[in-house]
């Protein structure tokens, strides 16, 4: 189990500031959801947390030690990071893709040994992708593909799992299947950080949420604490319907169309 912590991290792309002095904690056994409008710095924060981007200010700590001090391979054994999209340059089979998760465990001239094969097998079992092992990756559906990418991350056997919008291209059923699995993985003690676009999925699955706007933290806490009507309307710059729902008791967030808004502002008519 490992705890990942960002302390006052800042990040610039040229002159544009993507993040300014952001604090974040990804704790063992829980899911941190990073939410916010487009361009608010969600993916940037995840990149900094994963160590693939060095912050220009502040630092990232793993169990209190600076992440920057880890060698690349050691970082790969500690943090499994999955970017939003994976487009292999060459045709690749599912089992080869999953075995790549063993990259930080295998030496430069090495091939996978029995331990690596077992880890990949276990990762594919968990994600129910064993039947896909020999299929070319580019022939899979979006849902299968995301499960395979998750299997690759699991094969890394890293205590920290960071996923950038894992449900971006999935329909509702596949999104729920994937996030159910991610939640199980967190319950087993992994520290999970997610960038989530869908606030309802974020509300349902995340233990804590971090709301970003223009590269700064607007709110941090449990979903019910963070997802308030006034805050969301102001951060997202649009009128929303925000209320707990009857089934889960969790907050649901509903965007309102222009037509509905006009009707709302005109008030009920006789």
């Amino acid at each position, binding site marked *: 189990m490992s705890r990942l912590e960002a302390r006052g991290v800042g990040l610039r792309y040229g002159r544009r500031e993507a993040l300014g002095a952001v604090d974040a904690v990804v704790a063992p056994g829980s899911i941190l959801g990073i939410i916010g409008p487009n361009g608010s710095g969600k993916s940037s924060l995840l990149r900094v947390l*994963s*160590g693939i981007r060095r912050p220009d200010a502040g630092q990232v700590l793993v169990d209190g030690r600076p992440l920057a001090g880890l060698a*690349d391979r050691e970082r790969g054994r500690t943090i499994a990071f999955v970017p939003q999209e994976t487009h292999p*340059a060459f045709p*690749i089979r599912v089992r*080869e893709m999953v075995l790549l998760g063993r*990259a930080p465990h295998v030496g430069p001239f090495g091939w996978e040994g029995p331990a690596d*094969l077992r880890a990949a*097998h276990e990762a594919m079992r968990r994600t129910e992708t064993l039947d896909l*092992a020999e299929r070319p990756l580019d022939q899979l559906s979006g849902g299968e593909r995301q499960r395979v990418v998750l299997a690759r991350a699991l094969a890394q056997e890293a205590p920290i799992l960071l996923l950038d919008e894992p449900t971006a291209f999935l329909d509702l059923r596949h999104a729920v299947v994937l996030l159910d699995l991610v939640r199980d993985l967190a319950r087993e003690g992994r520290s999970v950080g997610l960038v989530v676009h869908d606030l309802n999925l974020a509300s349902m699955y995340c233990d804590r949420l971090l709301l970003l706007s223009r590269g700064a933290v607007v709110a941090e806490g449990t979903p019910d604490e963070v997802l308030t009507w006034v805050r969301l309307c102001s951060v997202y710059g649009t009128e929303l319907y925000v209320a707990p729902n009857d089934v889960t008791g969790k907050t649901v967030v509903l965007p309102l169309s222009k037509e509905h808004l006009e009707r709302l502002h005109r008030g009920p008519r006789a």
Partner: protein
Amino acid sequence: MSPAVPSGRGVAWRIHLAGAAALAVVVLAALATGPVRIDPVAAWFAPADDPAHVILVGARAPRILLAALVGASLGAAGAALQALLRNPLACPHVLGISGGAALFAILASVALPLGASAALAVVPGAAFAGALATAALVHAVAATAGAPTPTTLLLTGVVFNALAAAMITFVDAIADPSRARGILSWVIGAITVRGLPWAALAASTLAAGALLLLGSARDLNALALGEESAAGLGVGVERVRRRVYLAVALLVAGAVPVSGMVGFVGLIVPHLVRSFAGGDQRRVVPGAIWGGAAFLVAADTLARSLLPTELPVGVVTALCGGPFFLHLLRREGRSALGDAG
């Protein structure tokens, strides 16, 4: 529990065995073929003054050895560049790295009054510097574009090749004919036997470059998923990139002084290897080393025996490679040219 995921270790050994066998067959055929057909085994054991023995040992064997070394170098470099740049059209020639190396090598050999032994040190050094400079430029272009758009890269290559060809032709026109002899054949590429030290040099750069690339093959597999995915898998992307460009520059620097700008070897061979060995670079790189050697030995044998006069080998590789390149362009369509992702 029986793992459903077999290891590829056995397959890698099969690649080496199959590659070595294929090369041996091609080399034997090449030793036999030429203006005079000879039986290589009989000629080898013939007395030293036997004409067949003289042809075999004095002419064909050195030429074939050189073709094998150059082909292996270009094949390995092509495989690595295609993986690194995630582009099936990349190879040292197309990217202008061969052109940059040839340009520098020509400048050094013509501008400096070099004796034979000085040339052996300076010309490959200049070729290495040229290859490295072009590779650095390719790298810079790739890096500034964010995601390397293959079109930009290929255009950089076109420019460098044109520059190199122009420079070579220019030097050929103005230089002392005794020093510039044979220089024009560098433009299209021809295997040029320059003596054992040059072959030894090409062999050492091949060994060093191949070792670097074989050691990077695992990381190249991760890089084929994209830079961020690779970084997330604990690959030091920048370090791997530098290592691969260094290896490519070494390989090209050994090949160019004895062959000029031979095209299409590094382009075609990795595709052929991938078509039967899959995309794992731990198989593609060794496959491209053996396959590149066999391919260029075969092409050079055609070049020297097809017509009464000898053709530069680059003519043969271009005649095979040109249509293949067009086929790739058509098949990969926009995705190979990459702008639309």
